[in-house]
């Protein structure tokens, strides 16, 4: 090859292309994401941290906690379990509808299911199948409940109630996603651990709360203070079990850094529910219970149009729409996802689209 300039140009183009794909395009796609307005709670999610917690994030950064702890919860595309909780009054209609939803059921089995609620109707169904089944069954007068079927190891470990999405990190600077889990994921630590003393003890010596723990100690985030004879112990002093306690006359006081770090740890939670975290890919295939996709023939004509356009059809373009997460049932605590509400209220959204 005699053409130096061509070599330069080729390499340049290749690297530029990968930069466009890896950095620029994602920025164009999600760089303008807005905070999520949650009207019921009058908040914008993610919540801004308090000043103390923000400084705590700096302590977290400086100690390099993220070399052992991730802050991201993974989950494959969401699958739901739909349970019939009450058949209502029009049993025959519900049985007929159920047989539309579950083609594999014969009339007797369907009737048996309907007669003894609660019964699992769909075990692992994608978002749109669950939506349609919910709509059909509730139109027939039954009541159904939808829960998450595929928890995945992260959710089952209690590290979160849902996967984390890019909006969860809008306020983080820097972002501590982490690449390795030598310790547990901390994305939702504040949701499962609200005890300041517990956290302070964990930092002072992780083996106080969990014998045999391999987490490093951070004694330098605490100061030892000698009590003068007769002096009352400070209310700030860390309460320690006898085998970890300092000699009498000395108390362990958390430094400001330790308190800030704990404030930050308490602020860690990404469990608010909003539009983006629900419909993953338009995946309607089901893994076991449903043999055929549900038909929407039963739906009134006015609703058919809104049925066609469902949020899962455009998962990447949420920002194009005037997004009103307040339309969705927000239950962060029990994570009681109700696709019925969700699906029905997408119609204003669909209509608003060009």
């Amino acid at each position, binding site marked *: *090859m*005699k053409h*130096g300039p061509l*070599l*330069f140009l*080729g*390499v340049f183009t*290749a*690297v530029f*292309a*990968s*930069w466009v*794909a*890896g*950095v620029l395009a*994602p*920025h164009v*796609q*999600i*760089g303008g*994401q807005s905070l999520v307005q949650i009207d019921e709670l009058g908040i914008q999610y993610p919540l801004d941290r308090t000043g103390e917690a923000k400084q705590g994030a700096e302590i*977290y*950064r*400086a*100690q*390099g906690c*993220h*070399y052992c702890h*991730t802050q991201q919860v993974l989950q494959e595309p969401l699958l739901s379990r739909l349970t019939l909780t009450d058949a209502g009054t029009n049993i025959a209609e519900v049985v007929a509808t159920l047989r539309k939803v579950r083609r594999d059921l014969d009339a007797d089995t369907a009737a048996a299911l309907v007669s003894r609620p609660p019964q699992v109707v769909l075990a692992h169904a994608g978002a749109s199948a669950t939506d349609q089944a919910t709509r059909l069954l509730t139109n027939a007068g039954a009541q159904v409940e939808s829960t998450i079927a595929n928890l995945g*190891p992260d959710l089952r*470990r209690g590290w979160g109630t849902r996967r*984390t*999405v*890019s909006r*969860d*990190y*809008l*306020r983080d600077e*820097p*972002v*501590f*996603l*982490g*690449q*390795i*889990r*030598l*310790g*547990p994921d901390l994305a939702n630590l504040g949701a499962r651990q609200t005890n300041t003393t517990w956290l302070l003890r964990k930092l002072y010596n*992780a083996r106080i709360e969990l014998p*045999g*723990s*391999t*987490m*490093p*100690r*951070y004694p*330098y985030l605490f100061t030892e203070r000698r009590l003068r004879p007769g002096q009352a112990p400070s209310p700030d002093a860390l309460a320690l079990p006898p085998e970890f306690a300092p000699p009498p006359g000395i108390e362990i006081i958390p430094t400001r850094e330790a308190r800030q770090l704990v404030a930050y740890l308490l602020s860690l939670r990404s469990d608010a529910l909003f539009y983006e975290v629900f419909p993953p*890919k338009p995946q309607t295939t089901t893994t076991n219970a449903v043999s055929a996709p549900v038909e929407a023939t039963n739906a009134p004509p006015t609703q058919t149009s809104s049925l066609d356009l469902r949020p899962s059809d455009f998962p*990447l373009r949420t920002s194009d729409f005037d997004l009103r997460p307040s339309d969705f049932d927000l239950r962060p605590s029990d994570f009681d996802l109700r696709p019925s509400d969700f699906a029905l209220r997408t119609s204003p959204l669909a209509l608003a689209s060009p």
Partner: protein
Amino acid sequence: MSSPAPAPPPGAVPPPAAASLAPALPADLDRSCRWPVLVLGGLSAGWLVFAAVLGVLAAIKLHAPGMLANVDWLTYGRVQPAAWNALVFGFGAPAGLALALWLMVRLSGVPLVGTGTILFGAAVWQVGLKLGVLGILAGDSTGIEGLELPRYASPLLLAGYLLIAPWALVVFDRRQPRESYLSQWYLVTALLVFPWCFASGYVLTSFLPLRGVLQAAAQAWYLQQLWVLWFGSLTLATVFYFLPKLTGAAVPSRSLALFGFWTFVVFGGLGGLTRYAGGPFPAWMLSLAVVGNVLTLFAVYAVGANLLPSLHAAVSRLKGNVVLWFLGFALLAWLAASVLTALNSLVTVRHLTHFTLVTPGLDQLALLGGFGLAALGGMYGVVPRLLGRDWPSRFLATLHFGCAAGAVGLLAVAFLIGGLVQGAALNNTDVAFLTVAKRYLPFASTGTLAQLLWLVGSGAFAVNLLWLLVACARTVCVPAARALVEPLPAEGKA
């Protein structure tokens, strides 16, 4: 490009008679780049040892959580990134630059220009890196893995680089036979990629940070360029220069080499996001990364098919050649790391290996095993030519190879197996987290042993180099000093 007159290398030994006019005598070429290469190489040897000490410390801290816990400077979350930066920017980049300068000069057949600027650049780089590593230990890290250097340090590194690397491109531009070699293509790639990814990574995470997870996307892109297109290119440039030289067999297929090079350049940079597979990113980004990683296998095949046969044929003939050991091992490690990385990006595999020791295991295999051994092998080949004197201790060189290869092998095996064990335990939610930790710890402890081996090897190399330099200094200085002092005592005694 402007090119100031070549600064005469300070302290150059007068050329052997009759060598002055010929355009491209290897001895002239070597002399033109002697000081930059020696200075960069010597500094990188020092950092190699320092990084190994930090690496041992970090590894010990993983399984001895109470050790030195009182010293905030030495907490795991600071020693670990300090070791990484010392290794990558203290040893890796300067050693890579030293080899790049030498290879470029040799292959282009023109002497190096800009020696003074290069030495100045090396000084700027060193100042920046020292500030940076101290900053990390003091708690000033930026908090982005791989981009930890604080804001007061990273620009110095870039400035240092920009004072050094362009001279290699100037030399390439003036190359005497207009024909160019495969090694030169890889060098040009490496030299162009580094400033770009370094600047993009640091600017988009610490100077004008992108929002939220986009920082992580910028970081993943940077790491991929750094690992594959910078270290990978330098590894391949070195291997493609030395192996055919040593084995005496030319690269068999030029078109295969060309194909391998372009697939490497085009696909090699795409795979970064597998680090965050399943994370909070648009799904297409991961798909692209997987495709990139898998397509890079074409390049891996091309390199392997071109080099392995001749290596295989020469092994028995060149049993005693330390340089060949290093480069052969580096080639194998690079091939293994690339194949495993492609494998690891597949969703089913990733499901098991995500967030485990496999990630650092593969990183280390490519960095220490691939680039590290290639660069060290290159040093073993280059330094004697620059100084006109062979390595003083063959034993130390052999020891170095044994330790380094052993360390890389041990580390890779321990972390890959340990990662699988860890992944299986993480995915099995009946296993409490502490038990997960107890299961991966033995493998992490093996990592300590590997780091210790690496340290011993690095120490052997540093001692050997120092010994060689002192010996050379003595042959140069002793006669000079004698010439200075001799007349007086001679008179006095007479």
